[in-house]
């Protein structure tokens, strides 16, 4: 069971179950949309169903969008610096601002990852 699945289950109030039976339990209790679970458990055999689009609003989806956004900002900053070096019409402050924006976005992503990891470790310390 991965951390995201665990956190979702904690949020929605269902008991922690072994990874194999997660889908059946959830669909039986009806508390977690099956499509989201399928997406979260996509790495596990038997859990993925073709033809179902994962919802954009799931946490994993948001995290993916965030990583893509940060990556795009890094690309923009690198391009700005490259243009500056190449003598294109990019001013120094534009390049620096792009780099700083990429820096802060990256720090935000690292913070989200830290929180996620903290939650996971908190779960691992849970007394059953």
């Amino acid at each position, binding site marked *: 069971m991965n951390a995201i699945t665990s956190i979702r289950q904690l949020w929605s109030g269902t008991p922690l179950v072994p990874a194999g039976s997660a889908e059946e339990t959830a669909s039986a209790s009806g508390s977690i949309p099956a499509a989201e679970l399928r997406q979260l458990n996509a790495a596990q055999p038997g859990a993925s169903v073709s033809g179902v689009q994962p919802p954009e609003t799931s946490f994993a989806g948001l995290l993916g969008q965030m990583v893509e*956004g940060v990556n*795009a*900002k890094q690309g923009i900053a690198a391009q700005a610096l490259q243009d500056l070096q190449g003598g294109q019409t990019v*001013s120094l*402050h*534009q390049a620096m*601002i792009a780099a*700083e*924006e990429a820096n*802060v*976005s990256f*720090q*935000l992503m690292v*913070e989200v990852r830290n*929180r996620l990891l903290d939650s996971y470790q908190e779960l691992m310390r849970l007394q059953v």
Partner: protein
Amino acid sequence: MLNIIPSLASTTAALDAESTRLEVISQNIANANTTRGPDGRPYQRQEVVFENALQQAKAANGAAPGLVAPQVASIQKDPRPGRSVYQPGHPDADANGMVQFPNVDIYEEMADMIVASRTYEANLAVLKNGRSMALQDLSIGKH
């Protein structure tokens, strides 16, 4: 895309505008003694005119719509007459030996340059504050 540092769009536009102003001032100072341009006339002092532009293009970039950012509206020539100096040996002297010099006043340009520099500095301070606000946001919840 998310707008992570507040004030970014307006401040970037202001920095662009102020650096254009500094370019124009440097051109004025550099040509303070140019007595013949491509049209055969002495250099004429230029100045920038700023205008507000609705950030419609930048609103897609995450900034709040309805904000206005400065931008350079035009670079216009100063119509004031230049100074005349008596230099009969100068190749650009007229029949009376008078040479028309540009209407650039170095002291005025220096004052303008200080204004541009301070405005730039103020915008950088805004940017620094925006960055520090974003970084403080990131420390929410830390022990």
